């Protein structure tokens, strides 16, 4: 469960996030949408404990700042929009990095750390890639490896920043289905940001529309993905069509 109240983040002298309230129930998937520069990624970074903020953020009722760095890393795992791909590192070792919060300063990985990595690789169908170099994988395979590292953290809360922006539509769907499956199997709470509005609405339980660092609309896809709201905040002409899994947003030339 994620509870955010009055979140403010100031970066480079600008209030990038300016008073955001947000709730994600246990096991729910909430996606933040909004135009470029709305503050979507910054909200995610704040919840992940990666930028200084004002206001309150609580994970499962525990205030974020009450957690030590290691405890925080066991509670919330982040997949950034463009994760750094370390040169020559094998997928196995990359996923093992996710166990960092469980390994003592001078210690080494335990048998249970290795068991978790083996299990995560199996769950994400990455076993055949374990001995491959991460920098030789394709975009879709890489995204699975990024997810695997986050899952290896054993955290209940998963933050995904534009998880599909580098993928073709086939792999987009594959990754999002995978996240949805893992959410169900592992009881994960997911907070994501996405640009593709139709897809965002299809996978998330609730959408939050962010503009200028504030929440301007939130609710189900049907409540948020309306022609009026999108026209106002994205400055775009769109047609919203009723699809099987929710509204489909189609941009229309002015």
């Amino acid at each position, binding site marked *: 469960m994620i509870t955010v109240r009055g979140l403010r983040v100031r970066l480079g002298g600008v209030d990038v996030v300016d008073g955001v309230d947000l709730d994600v129930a246990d096991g729910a998937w909430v996606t933040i949408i909004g135009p470029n520069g709305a503050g979507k990624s910054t909200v995610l970074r704040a919840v992940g*404990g990666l930028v200084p903020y004002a206001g309150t953020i609580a994970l499962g009722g525990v205030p974020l700042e009450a957690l030590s760095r290691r405890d925080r890393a066991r509670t919330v795992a982040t997949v950034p929009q463009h994760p750094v791909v370390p040169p020559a590192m094998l997928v196995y070792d990359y996923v093992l990095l996710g166990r960092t919060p469980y390994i003592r300063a001078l210690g080494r990985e335990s048998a249970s750390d290795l068991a978790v990595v083996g299990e995560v690789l199996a769950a994400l169908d990455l076993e055949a890639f374990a001995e491959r170099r991460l920098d030789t994988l394709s975009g879709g395979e890489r995204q699975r490896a990024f997810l695997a590292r986050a899952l290896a953290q054993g955290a209940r809360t998963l933050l995904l920043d534009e998880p599909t922006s580098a993928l073709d539509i086939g792999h987009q769907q594959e990754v999002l289905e995978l996240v949805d499956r893992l959410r169900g199997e592992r009881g994960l709470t997911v907070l994501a940001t996405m640009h593709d509005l139709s897809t965002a609405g299809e996978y998330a339980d609730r959408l939050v529309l962010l503009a200028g660092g504030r929440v301007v609309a939130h609710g189900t896809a049907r409540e948020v993905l309306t022609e009026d709201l999108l026209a106002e905040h994205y400055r775009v002409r769109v047609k919203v069509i009723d699809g099987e899994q929710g509204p489909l947003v189609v941009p229309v030339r002015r």
Partner: protein
Amino acid sequence: MTTRPAREAPPPAGGQAGEAGGGGQAGQEADGRRQAGDKSAAGNKHRPAGLRAAWLAGGFVAVAVALVAGIAFGPVTLPPGGVAAELLNLIPGVRLHSGLTEREVAIVTALRLPRVVLGLLVGAMLALAGAAYQGVFRNPLADPHLLGVAAGAGLGVTAVIAARSGTGDVTADLPFGVPVAAFVGAVGAVVLTWLLGAAGGRARTPATLILSGVAVSAFLAAAQTFVMQRHTESLREVYAWLLGRLATAGWHDVLIVLPYAAVTGIIVLAHRRELDVLTVGDEEAQALGLHPQRSRYLLVIAASLGTAAAVSVSGLIGFVGIIVPHTLRLLAGPSYRSILPLSVLFGGAFLALTDLVARTVASPAEIPIGVVTAFFGAPFFAVVLRRIKG
């Protein structure tokens, strides 16, 4: 508690989506194990990256070879077997018959051993500091002199040598000698770089540190050149120092370097796993529960101190700090858990052996050791680069 470590949690009966609050992690793991755990545990053939026993053994062999060869060869050649026996005799409780005369034993323990040990220490420090810098700055071109150590030490030494020659007496007693001047110059330059790196209230990032290192190095090098031009009579001595040498007076220099080497070695090696995590960058390392800035500072300070100590007794020996870690990275894998300890062993052995070449090929003259490290190291590195693809 949502913060309970997953590995300590027992598998609950139904770790499912509905489970509220705590124990969620345990639930996920138990689920995963039920699905695929047995299969992957049984066929778990993967080993995490790290130090392989064969490489570690190879490192110790290299050090042993460097020790014996470095002591056996010189103006008087000693039998390597006898030298090895005499070295083992240094271990308390061991008494082997080496067949060496008393005079030869004195050559081993009083003359050559200190020099070889100094070579091992300096090489180990430079290679370890280079590897640490490359990890901290995530820059393959980082070398131990990056933050101004070389320029600072150069200026310190040039100033002292010039001051001495200015008195007209090369053996004039100054309050401190060349090693102290080099050490003070090196540490002073790094401190200057460090302060400049956060000037104007900016955040001290790897990029600002590297740039301020460039500025400090350029400034100090200009000052050094100015001093040299004003005291041309000292040029030869300054150049001899700049190019590096391990000429030593017994155990004195070894004892100067040893404490710094020990502290630097412990701090850097203790961070070997963290340096692996830092390869994904600060923000992700922070998300994984580390304190990257703090580790970075500690590592930079430790590596700079070790380099300054090495430079103070050996002069500016280039190349070791870049080529040794890179060769090990290419041959033994990219993990700092293997690069750092192997850099200590192979860096030391490499420098001790190049010193052997430096003092024997043109005997009785000595070639500057920095010339030898590059002359043999560069072609070797070219071969390694060619053989390793991708």
